């Protein structure tokens, strides 16, 4: 059993490496386009709401903390605390997505859309659609990861209610935790990159 758990942990770390590299491609693309069009990126980022972005950052950070508490609860066989903290993590992920939904719909409304769908009026600096191409691709891909994380947490909850986890078996909780921290970490990089361009 412990050999299996070790293998699963190696597997998850390797998977996280692939995730970092996948986002890495987008980060590099963003960096290069930013360097080519600094004025457009500067101007475009003013359309983002720093307050909502900051709130979301805090929400995800707290969710990472509740996830740690969940793993700890599993390792110490405290089933009730495990279930509570998994629900808290799930709920915070939901809050993140709701805030993101409001941000997105505001952008949609103003025509701040990627590529050829960009239709915002009154721009003084051309080329701002490039920023929004990256904004939507990167936050969108991140959002998909949040949703996948929420599904994984629901699956954990189902097994937690059945009493599957204890100090002698908590592997799935721990590797889901690893995944969730990565989702958090990516946002920690996305937030300053998108919202705090200077």
């Amino acid at each position, binding site marked *: 059993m412990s*050999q299996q758990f*070790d*293998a*699963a942990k*190696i*597997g998850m770390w*390797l*998977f996280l*490496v*692939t*995730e970092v*590299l*996948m*986002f*890495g*491609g*987008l980060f590099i*693309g963003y960096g*290069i*386009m930013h360097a*080519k*069009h600094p004025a*457009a990126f500067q101007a475009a980022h003013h359309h983002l709401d720093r307050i909502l972005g900051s709130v979301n950052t805090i929400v995800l950070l707290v969710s990472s903390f509740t996830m740690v508490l969940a793993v700890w609860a599993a390792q110490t066989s405290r089933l009730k605390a495990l279930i509570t903290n998994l629900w808290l993590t799930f709920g915070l992920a939901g809050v993140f997505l709701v805030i993101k939904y409001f941000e997105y719909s505001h952008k949609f409304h103003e025509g701040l859309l*990627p*590529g*050829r*769908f960009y239709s915002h009026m009154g721009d003084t600096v051309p*080329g701002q*659609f*490039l920023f929004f*191409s*990256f904004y939507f*691709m990167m936050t969108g891909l991140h959002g998909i990861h949040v949703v996948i994380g929420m599904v994984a947490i629901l699956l954990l909850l189902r097994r937690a209610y059945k009493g599957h986890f204890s100090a002698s078996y908590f592997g799935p909780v721990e590797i889901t935790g690893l995944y969730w921290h990565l989702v958090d970490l990516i946002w920690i990089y996305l937030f300053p990159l998108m919202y705090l361009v200077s």
Partner: protein
Amino acid sequence: MATEAITHTNHGDYLVDPPGLKSWLTTVDHKRIGLMYMWSVVFFMIVGGLFALLLRLELLTPKKTIVSAELYNQLFTLHGAIMTFLVIIPAIPGSLGNFALPLLLGAKDVAFPRLNLASLYIYWTGALMAVATLVIGGADTGWTFYTPYSTTTGGGVTLIVLAAFVLGFSSILTGVNFIATVHKLRAPGMGWFEVPLFCWGMYSTALIQILATPVLAITLLLIVMERVLSVGIFDPALGGDPVLFQHFFWFYSHPAVYIMILPAMAVISEVIPTFSKKTIFGYKAIAFSSVAIALLGFLVWAHHMFVAGMSLFAGAIFSFLTFFIAIPSAIKVFNWIATMWRGSITLGTPMIYAINFLLLFTIGGLTGLFLAALSTDVHLHDTYFVVAHFHYVMAGSNLIALLAGIHYWWPKMFGRFYNEAMGKIAAALVFIGFNATFLPQFLLGSRGMPRRYYNYLEQFQTLHVFSTVGSWVLAIGLFLALANLLASFRNKKEAPANPWGGRTLEWETSSPPTTHNFEGQPVLKHGPYDYRPEPAPVGAPEPTHH
């Protein structure tokens, strides 16, 4: 010795236990998954090969021969995409890796058996998408999908790009599985330096699959986004940069060349010591050069782009690093030859293929140096010289090694022997056909014949005819090899556990193995290439005649 092995071959044989098609489609047995990969790869090799034969036939005359220019573009695109993503990349890891890696390590299965089955289904999904591209209008971009053409042309580019994206996932899952397996499931007593070199090769391949494939995935998604949303990243008209696509693409696709060659080297490192009855020369040098190739492979991508508008300084650095990567490859070749030196060589079919590999890989590797040098590359870039070079490395090395490996492990897979004489004739035809097809292309390229052209100058026709006739010989050779293997199913299951006298663990179980590979947990009693004449451990098979 042989009779002793027969007595327990039919007990729990993985091929028939449990029986039925459904048990195959839902199996988590690494051996069955390996075989299903193998047949899938063979199927797509035939498809991609038929496209290649059509291409060569078209090039028989300087003007139109049988297909239109548009169809010609589609054919070379699909030939490249199918052979790269559906055949060469999964060929050895998917088939031989899945089949042999756990056996060589003395394990019951890979670390994540269900993930392994998932990777096969993802592969099939990607394959279906690639085939569907044919139906909805094909793609004419070449397998490299260069922008801005790939983001503006019509047809099924989006679908085939997504197919490559899906196939990448399959490749990543295999890689994750192999790394975890090598780390966690080695037999008791098997330290890192008793791991067979096949597994070192697979491990290094897996490293690249994990580190490079995600970048390809995001690059392909960006192409799709560019086609669907015109996001602008690769489109110069929108402020983007098409050369950025080339950087992204080759950041994956150059390491992918090593995803293709490292497994080939892995197979050869098993075949040569077994058929030379001699301890492999320079075990650590071969093992570490695999890892070195895996890591250095990430630093050379821009040598595909010397004429794409890079600074001379960057070009010089990439050129230097490219020369540098020739060193670990050469280390391996010298070690293999040193292994054969004064060995007791048996020229079985797998060994014939292994020697073919050494010759073809050396030609492929050395001609790579011409392309690594800035000043010669400017002349040879995008000519037939490049086509010939990468076919020597990708087809001449990977596919020949695949054939070596299939012939090497065939008795283990099915418990049956193929016809040895026919196997050798096929190997000879493949070797002659391959060289007849691709050696003339070096000459064509150095005389200025550009790749991917439909029409050409009449002065090139003689060499083109030579190459086309060569492709027929190659096709006959490959067909003979396949027919010979299939004909073995008429033979009795009489292969002994250890037909070649190998020393790695897979030869200690029956042929074919039982579902759980070994009876009990095998324990390592000697090194993987220990051919010293000291009394063999109890129960180890005696070496066959020599």
